[in-house]
């Protein structure tokens, strides 16, 4: 049986994502109870030194070719498989990101090991790691324990505090990734860049969302995007607003959209239907602005304002610009 925790650290062009540090910090806490050390895998990064400062004793670097800002399924599956064999951990941690959701279930099936998807908490129980995770769109939670062997756990972004940066040096090992049949079966042709540089909704720490009462795409842009920009937040939308064409589907927060986990969620003109709540109910602070005092969102909001968002949002935007400047 393996020992220690392997953390898969994702990056954007060599800059490690916040989730990498979050998980390294959590791994450190878990290994202090479980025993063993923390190692990291960085695919496509040339420099793993930064990870040593966040608790990785060993960093595996794997080169699978130019992923152009996306990822190559075959290369990634193989790299993870090889890192797991090299590190022989008890636990593998990764963010519940699009790439990891694509790659890790294949690794789990290939190695015939357990995988627990999108945990919001991890704890040591009886010498093993137990993942707490939501199902039914967050209407229920359960604890999932691995019966035997390695457990692969993916974690919802922003579930843990990132650790303070320390100083430590990691031993670096380059993995030579063997080719995989999958590399021919699934070929990455093109990656299209995002239009803006705001944080991904699923990783955002601040979100401002608009509902159908923004009444138009122009209304969405003027109210929601402007407030979001003032706050350094990512703009989101309810399903009704997306279906009406006021924002793209990639902005949708909710059961059939994105599940988000920010410290601050401002809901403008959103009634709070069950399916929307499913996507944002774990937000630490929720602010609701809605003219309807009976709107269900007020039962979940930390702070509520029962006024017209067309009046409130411009004033709030201006006040925040002043406060944050």
């Amino acid at each position: 049986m393996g020992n220690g925790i392997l953390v898969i650290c994702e990056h954007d062009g060599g800059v490690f994502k916040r989730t990498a540090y979050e998980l390294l910090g959590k791994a450190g806490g878990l290994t202090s109870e479980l025993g063993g050390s923390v190692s990291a895998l960085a695919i496509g990064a040339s420099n793993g030194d930064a990870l040593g400062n966040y608790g990785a004793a060993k960093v595996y670097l794997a080169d699978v070719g130019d992923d152009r800002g996306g990822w190559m399924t075959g290369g990634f599956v193989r790299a993870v498989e090889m890192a797991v064999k090299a590190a022989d951990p008890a636990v593998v941690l990764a963010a519940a990101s699009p790439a990891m959701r694509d790659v890790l279930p294949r690794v789990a099936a290939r190695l015939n090991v357990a995988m627990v998807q999108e945990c919001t908490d991890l704890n040591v129980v009886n010498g093993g790691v137990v993942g707490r995770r939501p199902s039914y769109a967050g209407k229920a939670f359960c604890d999932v324990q691995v019966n035997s062997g390695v457990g692969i756990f993916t974690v919802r972004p922003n579930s843990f505090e990132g650790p303070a940066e320390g100083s430590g040096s990691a031993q670096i090992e380059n993995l030579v990734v063997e080719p995989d049949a999958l590399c021919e079966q699934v070929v990455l042709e093109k990656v299209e860049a995002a239009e803006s540089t705001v944080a991904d909704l699923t990783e955002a720490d601040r979100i401002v969302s608009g509902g159908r009462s923004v009444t138009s795409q122009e209304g969405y842009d003027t109210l929601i995007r402007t407030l979001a920009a003032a706050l350094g937040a990512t703009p989101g939308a309810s399903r009704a607003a997306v279906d009406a064409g006021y924002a793209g589907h990639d902005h949708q927060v909710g059961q059939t959209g994105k599940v988000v986990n920010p410290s601050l969620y401002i809901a403008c003109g959103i009634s709070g239907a069950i399916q929307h709540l499913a996507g944002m109910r774990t937000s630490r602070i929720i602010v609701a602005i809605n003219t309807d005092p009976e709107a269900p969102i007020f039962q979940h909001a930390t702070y509520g304002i029962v006024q017209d968002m067309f009046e409130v949002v411009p004033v709030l935007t201006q006040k925040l610009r002043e406060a944050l400047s």
Partner: protein
Amino acid sequence: MKIGVCVKQVPATDSRIQIQNAEAGVNTADVKWEINPYDEFAIELALQMKEAGQGTEVVVFTIGDKGAEAKVREALARGADRAVRLEDAAFDGSDSLGTARILAAAVQKEEIGIVLTGKQAVDNDNGMVPAMMAEVLGWAHVQSVDQFEFAGDSVNCRRPAGGGKTMHLRAKLPAVIGCEKGLNVPRYASLKGIMMAKRKKIEVLDAAGLGLDPATVGAAGSSVSVGGWSLPPARPSGRILEGSTAEVVDELVGLLRNEAKVI
């Protein structure tokens, strides 16, 4: 080439979920069932592919008891040709890999060239079965596909890649495709389709019928144990801010900074 569609019935998305107890989990006794919303996009894509002459037959697969046939009939009513229902006590308590093995075994009995399914089921929200099926079958897989084009021996897919990026991939057939919202607009069944569905065949297979070793599926084959079921923690009551627009905004910003400490 036959087109396979894997569908699951799930509690309707506006259901109030109740927990029986910490071990037994969610109470599904009085739940209203619906076809998993993401599977609807898969059904629609299958029908469009058949209409375009890209496949000869659409076969629906589902794991469930007789009660699951109602939702399968809905898929047949929209135009799927026939269905295969997989039922065995040995299947109960399967983890995602066990589920993938059951569906893969059923798919392998037919000349299926492509499997379409929703990217995740909205009850367990794991989203692992499509990729695991592909690994068990040795096939390609693309997840969260919101644009699809058939290209003979391969398929061109687009998928969101996080951070607003999109990826364009080519997957060689045979492949498993995990369908995402936005791929298409699912059709309703016509009255004629509903009538015709009554005569379409639903074959039932068990573990023996699939040639599956019961030790590799169900609770016996599960790599995980699930318990500790509970409802989400209640949020502390919030408060409504009173006053003029200028006053509530001032108060809110102050609270966000000093009380909530989020700005």
